[in-house]
């Protein structure tokens, strides 16, 4: 049987090749170029913004400032990497800000109350986030609540747990070495940068080279087709929300490290920055589309605009207006490009 199955030999193969030849080259080249241009647009915008700020402000292109941007962005970017998986699967996670705060609080509590070394506390905070993600995943797949409603509820529940954990008091008395995670450097290379690169590379691999990543794309693109192709939607989604929770908890620990404390009010509104970074990076809220590199560019674009605005003494309220405009532009450009591409066929 196996042999015969393989030999579904083509009749009239030449004809197909012939038909292909005249459509192929020009169109393929154009599509490839369009793809490259699309990737370059976001990156190009980032570069242009950087150039403009380096001309406008002498402080922009300094070691300290760049170091600062990187450690600021790492928190958003790490969480946005998780959000990329969620949004590709046609979901959304509004609870990441609260989850990050809860991870940060409980992680720092572990360090300050027990005498474990701070990396174990970081692990604890990360796992707390993973637990929140697990509950999200179970509510979405087993109770069949929509991701929006599930995580809207969790946003409130997790924030409540943050306040309950200490009575809304910040956690201090942490070892100085804890600051390494969010602000340290090895031979001049920023530790948060290293952390971000490692997380991004692992996530890139997970998204593009594993079943999990492929299943995320398939579920976001067409859940029924995915199910009828034998993909377990429940399992995949639970893993994705756990991953998002882990990264949110970890992000919360990085943020705590930067201020060497656990802050109960950390991460309010953070989910919006995270979603914005993902969307600017080309992910579609309808699912099935998105990349890690795009999300990173989106996160840095937001951070650089914030940073540059501060350096140039632009009123901080304007920053918010500018970032909103960037979201509109990015999504508009993306849609414009897709429309043009599909109208060709």
């Amino acid at each position: 049987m196996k042999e015969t199955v393989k030999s579904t030999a083509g009749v009239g193969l030449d004809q197909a090749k012939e038909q292909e030849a005249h459509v192929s080259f020009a169109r393929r080249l154009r599509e490839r170029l369009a793809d490259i241009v699309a990737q370059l647009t976001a990156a190009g915008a980032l570069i242009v913004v950087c150039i403009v700020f380096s001309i406008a402000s002498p402080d922009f292109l300094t070691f300290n400032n760049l170091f600062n941007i990187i450690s600021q962005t790492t928190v958003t970017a790490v969480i946005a990497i998780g959000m990329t998986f969620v949004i590709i699967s046609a979901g959304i996670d509004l609870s990441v800000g609260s989850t990050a705060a809860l991870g940060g609080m409980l992680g720092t509590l572990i360090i300050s109350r027990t005498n474990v070394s701070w990396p174990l506390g970081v692990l604890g905070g990360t796992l707390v986030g993973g637990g929140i993600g697990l509950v999200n995943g179970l509510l979405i797949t087993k109770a069949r609540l929509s991701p929006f409603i599930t995580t809207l509820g969790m946003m409130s529940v997790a924030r409540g747990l943050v306040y309950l954990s200490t009575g809304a008091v910040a956690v201090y008395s942490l070892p100085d070495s804890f600051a390494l995670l969010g602000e340290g450097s090895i031979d001049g290379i920023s530790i948060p940068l290293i952390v971000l690169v490692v997380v991004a590379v692992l996530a890139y691999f997970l998204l593009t080279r594993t079943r999990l990543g492929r299943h995320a794309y398939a579920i976001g693109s067409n859940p029924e087709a995915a199910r009828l192709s034998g993909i377990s939607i429940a399992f995949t989604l639970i893993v994705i929300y756990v991953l998002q929770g882990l990264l949110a908890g970890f992000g919360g620990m990085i943020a705590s490290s930067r201020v060497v404390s656990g802050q109960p009010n950390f991460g309010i509104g953070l989910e919006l920055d995270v979603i914005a970074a993902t969307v600017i990076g080309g992910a579609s809220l309808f699912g099935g589309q998105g990349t890690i590199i795009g999300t990173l560019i989106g996160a840095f674009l937001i951070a650089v605009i914030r940073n540059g605005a501060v350096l140039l003494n632009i009123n901080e309220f304007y920053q918010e207006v500018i970032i909103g405009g960037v979201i509109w532009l990015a999504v508009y450009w993306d849609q414009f490009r897709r429309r043009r591409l599909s109208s060709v066929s």
Partner: protein
Amino acid sequence: MGVAGEGEVHRQPIVRLQNITKRFPGVLAVDEVSLDIYPGEVHVVAGENGAGKSTLMKLLSQVERPTKGTISINGQPVHFSGPQYAQSLGISMVYQEFALAPHLSIAQNIFLGREPARLGFIDRRGEVRHARELLRRVGLNIDPRRFVSGLSVAEQQRVEIAKALSLDAKLVIMDEPTATLTGQEIEELFDVIRNLTAKGIAILYISHRLDEIFRIADRVTVMRDGQLIATLPRADIDEKKLIRLMVGRDIANLYPKPVTAIGDVVLRVEGIARAHVLHDCSFEVRAGEILGFAGLVGAGRTELARAVFRADHIDAGTIWLDGRRLSIKSPDDAIDAGIGYLTEDRKKDGLALTLGVHQNITLANLPAFAGILNLGQEKRIAVRARDQLRIRTPSIQRRVNLLSGGNQQKVIVARWLETRARVLFFDEPTRGIDVGAKAEMFELIGRLASEGRAIILISSYLPELLNMCDRILVLREGRIAGVLNRAQFSEERVIALATGAKEVEVL
């Protein structure tokens, strides 16, 4: 059938297209097309997918702006201004995928955007009265205050036509209007069309179904590669000629059924039941055999296939493959056991439209080790499938939504071939694909059977089943009404079983 009999063709056309051309970046979609449409005629536009029919319709209804050429209505050249303007000139389009708001009532939908108002308030009673009158003209005797979401597809289509009438349409464009209708509904639609043409309204009708074209057309225009190949009165064409004009070459046999040795029973299904849907269904398929599922829409054909594949839950029933009893709980298990199901609705249930051709092909059987994908292997699989099935695509990475219907269908076939399935359900595999691609699809199905697979073919179009199948199983209201051997095949017998007509004994 309309007023535009032979002696009257010389009178003034309602719509005249002169040298209409539409160029998209890199593609000449419509190339110097000139065409006259007369009052009261049913003018069929035929052609393969990508021939430019849909673009031509969009130019007429002013959804797209022509690159060059003129469109005249009643002898007056008109400028381009958008679909609303085209409607005000009397050109209305009934869309293939209906464009009604499900949460509004029928009357609200008909007058959407043009609500009759008195002193700024919507005149709801007038709206309903007027809507009722329009519904009557399209043969619908239902309350216009009902919500559209509760209507059948056929009824929604009729509401669309009523909407066109409310706009005082002179030309109604219908894009594949029968694609989702049952036999009876098609007859009713044809009656409506006859009533409209009798009042001098012209119908421009796009269709793939040859039998319909011959039944309903006054004149037929054939397009291929954006060009108008010929416009002919119905009397001057036969099936063979029409296919040749559409495809550009002769197709020797639409239904190439191979002679195959039929082997042992591969799949045996016993007593499958699902409350209110399927009742005690048992059947078997042998290696090399093509078993047809016939029946009216809603008789349970798709449901039976989905039940075997466990895409839906079942209340009772056992499934045996190669004499071994299976315990299947999900599509995942069914695939592992060697059963494949090609869904009826490619776009809704089959394809991941934002993914590439290669990713769609490997979706049901990803080449992976310990969860890590082998992308090189995936590429080789996709290239091989493309060559074997002649999938026409500039590259295997191309997003699958950019392919034609026939090629999308082949992508799904490729996916299931990769699972090495022993049993394959093909649910309406030729829906929405053109004549040339249909013949290819049947050739492929025949080849899969001759390789020793068991094939189940579900189709609403009887000639497909009568020509391709070894046996036909007829369903009626969720029960198996009978099974016919090839020697017993006739359209009448199948219909009698499907409808429960008494004369089945006589036949």
